[in-house]
């Protein structure tokens, strides 16, 4: 066990853990939103993330024409390009998430199918997307150009506040605050919360259930798309199965925080990112997954509904 690395690199590990955890948090929101209203895990969310990384790559390389060796951008052009890629990724993922809902969930729900049928159909869509991308890309990894030069704002006790790290921290926080306010204050947000509490009562109150569910998938797709953009911008690569590990991590974060709970997903993501970084530093990277799941089991032993979960889980703030 290497404590000296943790003490000497504490702030650096914390900063990197926060950045990584916030990417997890954004994907985790996709899982938790859907679980909140449907009480089902959207297994296709990991492939929605994968799709977002390829959408970002497509926009940057093919649509905007920046090849792998393209020089980094600056000023307005940089802001415009990144904002465009972010919005395109979010939009692509939202559309895909809505299609997933229509294909894998809605018809089965309308026919009163067993809940497990929806679960299996979501897995089917997930495999379809995964294998489809595998065939399109012949399983090869792909890189994106470094449009954002990784300059630093400065260091604090060894923690390097690089532009991509700061972006990965600031953007998810803004997205989360907006989403939190939307769910808490807006009419549509209140509809989502109402459906999560009781579908039957919501129907009686005149809420269009299908519209709320589609909206929930759409929001999940938007946050997952944002995560995919940030991932591609920071790591500059993607591959057809990139969603697998991300899906595991985000789902774990959602369970750790309390699935069905927005704030739970958000802080669960951060906790997971931090835990991974410190476990890797202290015990060695080979112990990262073991440590994360050991901690998860211990947390669930004492807080069976996760850190922020309640006995009756709801999509609430």
């Amino acid at each position, binding site marked *: 066990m290497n404590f000296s690395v943790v003490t000497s690199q504490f702030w650096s590990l914390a900063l990197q853990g926060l950045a990584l955890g916030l990417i997890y948090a954004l994907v985790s929101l996709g899982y938790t939103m859907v679980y909140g209203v449907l009480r089902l895990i959207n297994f296709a969310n990991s492939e929605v993330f994968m799709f977002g990384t390829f959408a970002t790559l497509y926009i940057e390389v093919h649509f905007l024409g920046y090849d792998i060796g393209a020089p980094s951008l600056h000023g307005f052009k940089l802001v415009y390009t990144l904002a465009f890629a972010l919005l395109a990724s979010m939009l692509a993922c939202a559309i895909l998430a809505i299609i997933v809902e229509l294909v894998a969930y809605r018809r089965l729900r309308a026919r009163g199918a067993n809940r497990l049928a929806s679960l299996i159909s979501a897995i089917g869509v997930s495999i379809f997307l995964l294998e489809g991308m595998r065939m399109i890309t012949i399983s090869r990894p792909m890189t994106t150009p470094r449009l954002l030069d990784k300059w630093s704002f400065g260091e604090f006790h060894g923690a390097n506040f690089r532009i991509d790290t700061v972006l990965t921290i600031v953007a998810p926080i803004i997205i989360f605050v907006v989403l939190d306010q939307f769910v808490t204050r807006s009419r549509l947000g209140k509809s989502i919360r109402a459906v999560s509490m009781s579908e039957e009562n919501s129907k009686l109150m005149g809420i269009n259930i299908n519209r709320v569910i589609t909206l929930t998938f759409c929001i999940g797709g938007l946050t997952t798309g944002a995560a995919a953009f940030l991932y591609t911008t920071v790591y500059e690569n993607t591959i057809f199965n990139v969603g697998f*590990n991300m899906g595991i991590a985000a789902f774990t974060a959602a369970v750790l925080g309390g699935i069905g709970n927005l704030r739970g997903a958000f802080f669960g993501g951060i906790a997971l990112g931090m835990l991974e970084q410190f476990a890797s530093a202290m015990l060695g990277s080979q112990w990262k997954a073991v440590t994360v799941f050991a901690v998860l089991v211990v947390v669930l032993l004492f807080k069976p509904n996760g850190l922020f979960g309640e006995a009756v889980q709801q999509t609430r703030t």
Partner: protein
Amino acid sequence: MNKKIVSGLAIAAAATLALGVVATSPASAAAKKSVTLAFQGPLTGGDAQLGQDQIPGAIYAIALYNAKNPAVKVELIKADSQCDGTVAANIAPGVAANKAVIGVIGTSCSGEARNSFPAYRAAGLTMIAPSASAVSLTDPKAPDRGFPIFHRVVAHDGFQAPALARYAAKGVTNPKYYVIDDMTTYGGPLAKGTLPTAKKLGTVVGTDSVAKGTADYTSVASKVKASGANVVIYGGYTTDAAKLFKALRDGGYTGILASGDGTNTSDFPGLAGKAAEGVRLTAADVPFDSILTKAQLAEFTKITGIKVPGLYSTTAFNATNIFLDCISQGKLTRSAIQLCVNSGTFKGVGGDVIKFNRYGDIIGGAPVGGYLVKDGVINYDAVA
């Protein structure tokens, strides 16, 4: 999220492919008009370049052989393992079931070799690997050895690992090594194999093992930076090496980056970008284009469509030629091929003599080359 189901489908797909190979295979060996050799390695996936660099060597050798109008023509089938042991365990039985196949040029990766042994051993199918270099594959004491069917025309990592440690620190006074591996059959032992030489030449300030396929290497970069290392050695494959080296450079590490032949593929500079510049790589291979004459190189390009032969084209060419040599001697059954390969003496394209010891290694080993990435291209530098 759906690993079990994906695995299940992969098995089903592999079985279908295997049946397809059987169903579409050319004339049977019994007809003695043509026989088939199989190339097994990654042709798709993150490590695909490793196989894609090698298979032209096999195609070229077979084309030259068939052009001589021999009594028995040779055909080549491809088995895509994706450098994944699980995939290999599924496709190897299909190749073994194809009666036309009398030899396997492969495997490219060590993990897939180990997982293919049960099927090929049961079928008596001889393997000659162009690049699977893990020591255990030919270690008589190792439980995962490939005896008696496995052979390789590449020096094993018992030669490469010390050479990698030497070449990584070449010109560095007081090298401080940080050694990282990808926890695979290949990467783990290769990285660990560098440690004795590293300790002789300098100090080892840290080690770490990060599973292949990890996305985020920032914590490793922090540890390396904190350790004060000036030489980082990575035992693993291209895709992850690119991610690790990028994270290290972005994290402020300015020392030497080095890796073995798993990273020495032509797509590495493209995947690692600027972080690839100056990276030191090793491989127990002599560049094919340095052996061929101009006319032969033009012929190679005409046949394969490849202008610059990739890494281990030479060993793939040699491995194929060993089979072709046996076939031209009239050895047309799996057992005859095995006897021929086990006991024969063959000539490599560079004029070297190839003879295998009892456990499948070439007698006398082979030199390990040092390669340097410059301006986005991997260039042969010197003997490592």
